[in-house]
């Protein structure tokens, strides 16, 4: 299993927004859906689930954009207003025990070796899902 103990700080590309984690991410998802391709402007999004009580914004002011999800919920997508980098996603109307921090925003490289790949039916040609990975063509149940 991948160890995520070193993942303790992060922020946007320009450095205006910074955060700290009191505990490491507990589960990592790599999502190949169209929304994640657009939000990352890359091949997939990375959601690192951390306990909300472990997360602390230490610098900067964030901006957010809210979108409806397929399940009828509203997702608040938080980013840096100065450079645009995504930082985390959370539910708009309820506070859940976990939040989805975007994996590329960590200062230390995140190990994706134990990540669960979802929406692999939308995977870009030329993106390899490693052998033995837990994967789901759509969302897991």
């Amino acid at each position: 299993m991948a160890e995520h103990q070193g993942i303790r700080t992060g922020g946007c590309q320009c450095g205006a927004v910074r955060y700290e984690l009191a505990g490491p991410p507990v589960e990592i998802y790599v999502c190949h859906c169209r929304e994640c391709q657009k939000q990352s402007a890359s091949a997939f999004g990375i959601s690192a689930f951390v306990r909300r009580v472990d997360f602390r914004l230490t610098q900067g002011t964030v901006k957010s954009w809210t979108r409806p999800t397929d399940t009828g919920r509203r997702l608040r997508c938080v980013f840096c207003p100065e450079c645009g980098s995504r930082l985390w996603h959370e539910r708009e109307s309820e506070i859940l025990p976990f939040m989805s921090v975007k994996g590329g925003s960590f200062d230390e490289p995140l190990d994706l070796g134990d990540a669960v790949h979802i929406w692999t039916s939308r995977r870009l040609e030329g993106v390899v899902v490693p052998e033995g990975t837990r994967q789901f063509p759509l969302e897991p149940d």
Partner: protein
Amino acid sequence: MSDRRTAATGGCQCGAIRYEVLAPPMKVYVCHCRECRKQTASAFGISAIVRPEDFRPTQGEPKSWVRIADSGRRLRLMFCPDCGSRVWHDRDGIDWPTISIEGGSLDQPLDLRTAVHVWTSRKLAGVVIPEGVAQFPFGD
């Protein structure tokens, strides 16, 4: 004359910024550097290289942030002020012969099978580079 029909369209996640491309990308790079991890908040950046004359913003006013690259070049990074999505990168203050479209912003899924992978020395563990592709531990 080249065919001036639209080859591809793209935009940000919320739809405020839209663009069209009049020719297929000349080259596609997958960049595993730390800056690209931060800008995508994902594992790597995707640059689809097009000529400025083949690129046309069609809707919205992007915001930009300028950073100085290791090479000393001033990169102008364009993103949507409403949702933050990166849309393209160009150069600040000078005309440059290419524009780098951020690959995930294209409406049509991009085929990365022939993409050139750069900065593979910074690749995240658990990211697999397809066999046989051109790859460079640092820049191209």
